[in-house]
């Protein structure tokens, strides 16, 4: 696909043609010349949206909560995009993406765009796909971009970290006080939510969490005190308070100039991931061509054989320099 057709797709997407937007997202899902083309064209329009990461253990009710939050954001007049990150099967590599199932009530609303991303099978990895899609949504005038993820694994942590606002979702009975806060993305929440707060033990969980938040080191240490909100997504309780907190955090980020800094670091990360994808593709090609050689060498002299990694790296680099398109 050459520049002309990418231009045409962007034009149509700007006119509000959702089909064109869906196609653009596919083009940036995998690294390569097309993704580069789309990104270079849309990025100048991007940089205005608030990116909100919803993360938390499976079963905490993230998808249902996100659906309620969408309703409230729509009432406040925002256009909303959702990236739902769903796990792939480690066996077949296939996936059943069912997160959008909880949000289907918004499917017919042209002001809401929901897209699923599998955790496997993307050539540039999950983070590259997600960050690139954020740029596209942002450029096309979506005010709030929600990323829903379990927040486990490097890519998912990277993606969450690239968000302006991180909402950590937990629920009653999900472990003791700091099980959730031990490590990873749970430590860097801007807003903590105890969902399913209609259940018994919700107050205990909230009190535990409050205690943990008052200790040092929780949150991103940017002068913002993490908020704690109790919700019941199913009953529709506490959603307004949560959306208020999300808005408050956004104002804080804009007032302090942190919003723009977050966009800048997100773009540095995306650039890096695209470069990595390029190098990785070249490396895979080289390894494929040299597989026999490598296997033979490993059989003959195990101690010296691993130095082949140097050779592989150099050949891959040469390939990139020559500009062969590995895709």
């Amino acid at each position, binding site marked *: *696909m*050459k520049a*002309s*057709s990418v231009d*045409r797709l962007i034009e149509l997407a700007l006119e509000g*043609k*959702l*089909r064109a*937007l*869906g*196609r653009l*997202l*596919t083009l940036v*899902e*995998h690294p*390569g010349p097309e993704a580069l083309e789309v990104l270079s064209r849309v990025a100048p329009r991007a940089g205005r949206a608030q990116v909100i990461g919803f993360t938390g253990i499976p079963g905490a009710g993230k998808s249902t909560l996100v659906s309620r939050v969408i309703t409230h954001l729509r009432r406040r007049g925002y256009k909303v995009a959702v990236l739902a990150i769903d796990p*792939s*099967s480690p*066996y*077949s*590599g*296939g*996936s*059943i*993406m*069912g997160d*959008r*199932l*909880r949000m*289907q009530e918004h*499917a*017919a609303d042209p002001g809401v*765009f*929901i*897209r*699923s991303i*599998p955790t496997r*099978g993307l*050539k540039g990895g999950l983070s590259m796909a997600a960050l690139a899609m954020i740029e596209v949504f942002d450029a096309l005038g979506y005010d709030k971009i929600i990323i829903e993820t379990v927040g486990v694994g490097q890519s998912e942590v990277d993606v969450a970290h690239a968000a302006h606002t991180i909402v950590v979702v937990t629920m009653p009975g999900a472990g003791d006080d700091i099980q959730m806060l031990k490590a990873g993305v749970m430590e860097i929440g801007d807003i903590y939510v105890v969902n399913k707060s209609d259940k018994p033990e919700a107050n205990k969980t909230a009190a535990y969490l409050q205690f943990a938040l008052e200790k040092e080191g929780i949150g991103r240490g940017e002068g913002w005190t993490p908020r704690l909100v109790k919700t019941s997504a199913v009953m529709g309780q506490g959603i307004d308070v949560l959306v208020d907190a999300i808005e408050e955090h956004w104002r804080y980020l804009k007032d302090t100039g942190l919003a723009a800094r977050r966009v800048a670091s997100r773009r540095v990360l995306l650039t890096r991931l695209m470069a990595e994808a390029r190098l990785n593709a070249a490396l895979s090609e080289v390894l494929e061509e040299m597989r026999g050689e490598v296997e033979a060498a490993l059989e003959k002299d195990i101690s010296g054989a691993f130095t082949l990694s140097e050779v592989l790296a150099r050949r891959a680099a040469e390939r990139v320099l020559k500009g062969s398109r590995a*895709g």
Partner: protein
Amino acid sequence: MSSPPSTRGPEGRRYKVLVAKMGLDGHDRGAKVVARALRDAGFEVIYTGLRQTPEQVAMAAVQEDVDVIGVSILNGAHLHLMRRLMRKLEELGADDIPVVLGGTIPVIDIEPLKKMGVREVFLPGTSLAEIIEKVRRLAEEKRSREEGLAKVEG
């Protein structure tokens, strides 16, 4: 044994299928079995859940940019629902996405469904292997058409 047929396009992207239930119909076992089988065959499957309107299904297909739409209907309203789905897809400029239907469909309705543009109708008793293979072929066909189109436009 030969390796199973590929569920990826020439550019390496996995085939993507939307599995949907439409209308007032709570029987989702079939849809879930098919979704699972497609996943195990290496497809990316997006499942919409129960009681969707044709408009919701069409929008989901567009947002997810799927290669095939698979609908399951067991409540007898297939002619009406499928007509609405095909109309909405056309309206969204997405009538190039092949649609297949499974469920309790009277044989006499197959012809009118195909006239509407439904590519395959799977009746009760169709094997999973057959469904997977036909869906795979439709996805393959759509992808190669896109490739061709890109060449023409470029």
